[in-house]
């Protein structure tokens, strides 16, 4: 049995919703995995420590995780958050940055502290800034289908399919709509298919005269536009029809 955990950092739970939204496809996967840790989906396993002055009840990240799906960014100012992400790395074989916040910081890149209920929490970074990440799946949230495809490939050891996600884990931490400008339009690669505009989940891209126009005021730095662009990365595996 492959042990899967969903670890929740600073995120909105949208990635977890997307994971559960797989319905029957998730059930197929659940048949071959053991979900050892996940909000709402797995039974809570708590550890009780009793000392002289208090009783501590904690939810502990288990050991021996095969695939950890991490949602949300790391708050550097919060020691719980730091403990959790370091424990996750230590206890897991494969760490997947699930969604924009974990992969590239996403909308949490715009946090700057001074707000209720934790005014001292100001610094939020993608998990790759703190630990080594094996695979990163962008999207806010990533589609249910892509989560299932990634998990299935990981369970089957299909490294060819996973290669682009390993690459995003390495290079995609500073993702932004301007990647499409810098890496595609500036490099004379954009032919105007409109995939970036359709993929953008906050409508920050309009097609003007057949080319993308990035509205950086709307961009949440999720990196889905360049990740989905066929002119940045076109894995050979796509050429296999039927």
């Amino acid at each position: 049995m492959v042990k899967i955990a969903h670890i929740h950092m600073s995120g909105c739970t949208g990635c977890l919703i997307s994971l559960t939204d797989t319905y029957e496809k998730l059930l197929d996967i659940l048949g071959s995995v053991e979900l050892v840790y996940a909000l709402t989906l797995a039974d809570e396993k708590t550890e009780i420590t009793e000392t002289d002055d208090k009783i501590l009840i904690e939810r502990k990240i288990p050991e021996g995780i095969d695939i950890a799906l991490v949602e949300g960014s790391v708050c550097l100012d919060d020691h719980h958050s730091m403990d959790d992400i370091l424990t996750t790395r230590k206890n897991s074989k494969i760490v997947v940055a699930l969604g924009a916040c974990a992969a590239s910081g996403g909308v949490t890149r715009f946090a700057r502290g001074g707000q209720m209920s934790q005014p001292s929490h100001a610094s939020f970074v993608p998990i790759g800034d703190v630990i080594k990440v094996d695979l990163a799946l962008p999207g806010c949230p990533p589609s249910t289908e892509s989560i299932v495809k990634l998990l299935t490939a990981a369970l089957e050891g299909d490294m060819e399919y996973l290669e682009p996600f390993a690459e995003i884990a390495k290079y995609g931490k500073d993702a932004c709509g301007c990647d499409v400008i810098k890496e595609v339009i500036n490099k004379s690669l954009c032919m105007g298919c409109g995939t970036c505009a359709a993929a953008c989940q906050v409508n920050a891209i309009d097609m003007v005269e057949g080319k993308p126009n990035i509205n950086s005021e709307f961009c949440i730095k999720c990196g889905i536009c360049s990740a989905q662009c066929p002119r940045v990365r076109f894995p050979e595996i796509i050429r296999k029809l039927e």
Partner: protein
Amino acid sequence: MNPFGNYKTVISARATDKEILKKAQDGGIVSAAYIYGLESKLLDGVIVANTEDGFNAAPKVATTPEEVLNAAGTKYTVSPNVSVLKDAVREYALEKVGIVGTPCQVQAIRKLIKYPMGFRHTDSKIALVMGIFCMENFSYEGMKAIVEEYAGIRMDDVLKTDIGKGKFWVYSKYGDVKSVKLKDTHMYEQKSCHICTDYTAELADISTGSVGSPDGWSTIFIRTEKGEAYINKMVEAGVLETKNIDDVKPGLDLVQKLSLQKKEKNEKEIVQRRELGLPVPY
């Protein structure tokens, strides 16, 4: 070098409907497939490159045969068809979408089917992927320069454009026919087209284009089981008239010649860009 990519069969065909042939560029294959799909309920919506004011092109979700007919004909300018795919599924609530594109757009569609990161509940709604033969494309301003500066026809007055016999042809609403030598149009080509080595939309279910077939007919590559079943249904329903590709002039040799030309020329460009340290799709 494999000129056509994988395919099951190749035929020459044209639509049987006179209305379609009157409006279509060549054999009316895309229009006929779309209209047949909508009428037979195989598709509940299709994405077309619609003709806008000033003979510009823009993608549109069409749900009626009239809308499909209005969009018929080649525009030779960029229509980002993939950009409305998610709208077709979300806003129009379509379950069976037909989409057509140039080879590069078909590649984009195949990528989003294989890696649907930002396309929630979308890829399963794509019912038919059609591709059109393509050598290169022009930006709208580029085509405007060719049509207005070289051919001397106002964009608002354009009825149809066509590329054939080494020339770019412009037909005006008032009956004028002007032509521009293709070598004069090269400087207006999208430079991004020069790293594309796909001429016949090798990843589509069905690819079509005029090259290889007689005037008024189109060549069709049937590539997938889905595409094969679809074409067979069209032939059974009598909306498509077909011929063996070996029996028509100029035939498959010409398609092969143009395809290899594109592949060889653009392979060189890819090598050159790599030598300069510039990125190319990989």
